[in-house]
């Protein structure tokens, strides 16, 4: 019960009617208490398989979701590819509804209607969006595209990915943790990130009220006493910078006390061209990321 009541207090006003009707029905109250925080666990999309609803959902998607998830839901710079059957925060209708309506705490995914760009959706419109997402969903290929176990060997071995990237607690800290990348990003995105990591820098910290996330920019500073550090920007404002150097040390600077500060959008990650990493080996690493992401 406490979780339900705390949930009710923090639920956005928009959801009152839905949640309230849940509370007011004695039988449903038990269900709510058991499944909190999602009040929709028992629910199916009333428009499942409805092509007209999917089309209406596409308009909603374009207005509310495309800014981050891209046209066609294939993933933009900010939001994951949603054409994958496996969704990071739950793949069922009710889980998708919850993700859209409540947002995902700790990520850039806001609650319905809270964004700068979107206008907010009714319950009906959210279901239409879910119909649209189902209509563009791509079934996973029957044959795995690569050899995940070989990919894991490469990741922790000769490809040296783990020097900077962590998966499930094992690896380096300088680059983004890749434990969930397989479920959040399209294969194309992952391949591009290896072949041409500077084209789109990875997203770092997202602050609750800030429109745009920090990116993994490369930074070189020289301190007042002449020490030089190179690494990635963890966060930055006009006056300060928070960085991690290539030895995984954190440095927190006031910019006006530095002798110099240079930033670059040339990623610290080396570009893996086909000579240093064959297409097959690359597919094996992708297969490993997909396997881990699905866990």
């Amino acid at each position, binding site marked *: 019960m406490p979780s339900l009541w705390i949930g009710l207090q923090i639920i*956005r*006003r*928009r*959801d*009152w*009617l839905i949640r309230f009707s849940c509370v007011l029905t004695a039988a449903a109250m038990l269900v709510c208490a058991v499944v909190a925080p999602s009040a929709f666990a028992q629910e199916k999309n009333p428009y499942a398989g409805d092509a007209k609803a999917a089309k209406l959902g*596409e*308009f*909603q*998607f*374009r*207005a*509310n979701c*495309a*800014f*981050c998830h*891209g*046209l066609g839901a294939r993933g*933009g*710079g*900010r939001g994951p590819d949603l054409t994958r059957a496996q969704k990071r925060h739950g793949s069922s209708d009710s889980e998708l509804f919850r993700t859209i309506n409540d947002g995902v705490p700790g990520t850039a995914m806001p609650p319905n*209607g*809270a*964004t*700068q*760009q*979107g*206008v*907010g*959706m*009714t319950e009906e*419109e959210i279901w239409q969006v879910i119909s649209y997402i189902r209509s563009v969903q791509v079934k996973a290929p029957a044959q795995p595209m690569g050899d995940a176990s070989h990919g894991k060997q490469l990741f922790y071995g000769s490809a040296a990915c783990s020097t900077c990237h962590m998966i499930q607690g094992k690896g380096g800290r300088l680059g983004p943790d890749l434990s969930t990348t397989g479920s959040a990003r399209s294969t194309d995105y992952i391949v591009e990130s290896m072949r041409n990591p500077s*084209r*789109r820098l990875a997203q770092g910290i997202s*602050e*609750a*009220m*800030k*429109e*745009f996330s920090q*990116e993994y920019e490369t930074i070189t500073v020289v301190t007042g006493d002449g020490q030089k550090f190179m690494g990635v920007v963890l966060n*930055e*404002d*006009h*006056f300060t910078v928070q960085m991690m150097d290539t030895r995984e040390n954190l440095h927190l600077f006031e910019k006006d006390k530095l002798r110099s500060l240079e930033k670059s*959008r040339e990623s610290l990650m080396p570009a893996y061209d086909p000579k240093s990493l064959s297409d097959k080996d690359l597919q094996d690493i992708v297969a490993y990321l997909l396997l881990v992401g699905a866990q």
Partner: protein
Amino acid sequence: MKNASMPHESKSRLLATLGMAVLSSLPIAIAALSFLAPPSSAQVTAQRLLDAGKEPQNWLMYSGDYAGRRYSTLEQINSENAASLAPKWAYQTMGGGKFETTPLVVDGILYGTGQDDRVFALDARSGRPIWQYQRALPGDIRPCCGRVNRGLAILGDKVFLGTLDAHVMALDAKTGNVAWDVTAVDYRGGYSITLAPLVIKNLVIIGVSGGEYGIRGFIDAYDAATGERKWRFYTVPGPGEPGHETWEGDSWEIGGAPAWITGTYDPVTNTTYWTTGNPSPSNRGEGRAGDNLYSNSLLALEPETGKLKWYFQFSKHDEHDYDATQVPVLVEQGNKHLILQANRNGFFYVIDRVNGKLINANAYAKVTWSDSKDASGTPIARKDASPTPEGNRVCPGAAGATNWMSPTYDPQTKLFYVTAREQCDIFSTAPQPYEAGHAYYGSAYFPNDDAAPFTGALRAIEPSTGKIKWEWKHPSPTWSGVLSTAGGLVFSGDAEGNFIALDAASGKALWHFQCGASVYASPMTFAVDGKQYVAVAAGSALFTFALP
């Protein structure tokens, strides 16, 4: 939902006790009551609003004065001592989402609005609440772009509020009790109100938002005493009205042109200036061929009647959501009476406010939608800037080169300061059907993934030339407005949470404070007991700063 229910209950208990006392000892009670002063007269007269500049300790309307300059003659905090500014108090609304208020201050009391139509009155010295109000909003409102409110207007003993469910309300300034509450329009058609009203004489003037839903926009005037509606000016003309011919077929019925931001007023010519937003649907021009008057326009209205004196349209037949809803600032330059507006479309316009003629228009941010001007000097759109089904990259982006956040004009430096956003977006279009009350963009827009991160800047524009005298770079685009003061200072915030004081002449930062969350508001200043404060909303808190 009234947060002030507790004080009310205690008050009624007190009255009940008094009542019993009256019954038991009537003569004594009458004697006691005779010591009470008669009700005090109205606090804020229409004359005080006209003379707002004579009482700089107070902030009597959204932009500080009728000219919309967001400039204060207070100079206790100045470029010599700004470095020692320190926080004095903070007030937490505990609401979620963006907190966009510019508070009013009248004789030591601060009146502000918060998320979900909260209203509060605080002791301006301590931040302690005197009363709090929160509207019980219907569960099915869907206001575009956040459950926000930008502020109040005041006249007499009432403060005035527009609500997210498209009501206009008057609250008692001393108690927060509802004095009147009228429905401007049925919110279920996609209407909402997020802007602060403007009081002129005995009228409360306000417009509606909802350009994302296929509304038909309007500006209203209500009797401040009773809430009776005195006039309505439809920003999309109906059949038989001038400008109706600028709409294809029945497209005028859902033509948009909302009002997002408070207007200004010139008492000399008795003209109030209001601005309008995009035609609907915002990013698809097909089906609404024509200039689409009076979308994206500046309107000169007679306050008593709502009669249109003249108009100026910034972006004709707009397909990029270039709302013209930025404060139209009234400035005197020699014997010229001007309106300055830094428009969302990226141009800085100088307009003769007597006749509405354009004097000049210069880009103050990156612009690709226009590369030519017509005979009058008005920038006109490139044919190939229209959104396409696949997407077309255009600058400024969907959020504009600036937006609703206020600029400021400093008569000492003679500079106009505005928050500029350098963001280009890919605009795509889709033939979306209209459904009443539902979002109606006909489009999507999304950032160009390949591009370097978007940035922003606070820019100081010289109005006579359009030249940028200096800029303060923001690491990312911000939604903070700007305040200038006679202390030689300009105040603004950023998306990273800093509130910053800059030298108005040079743009050098003199002081900053980390508020802990992005600033989505325009700052203001006031004084109580001879002490000057600067206030700004950030996160869910209203912060005030003063010298130690």
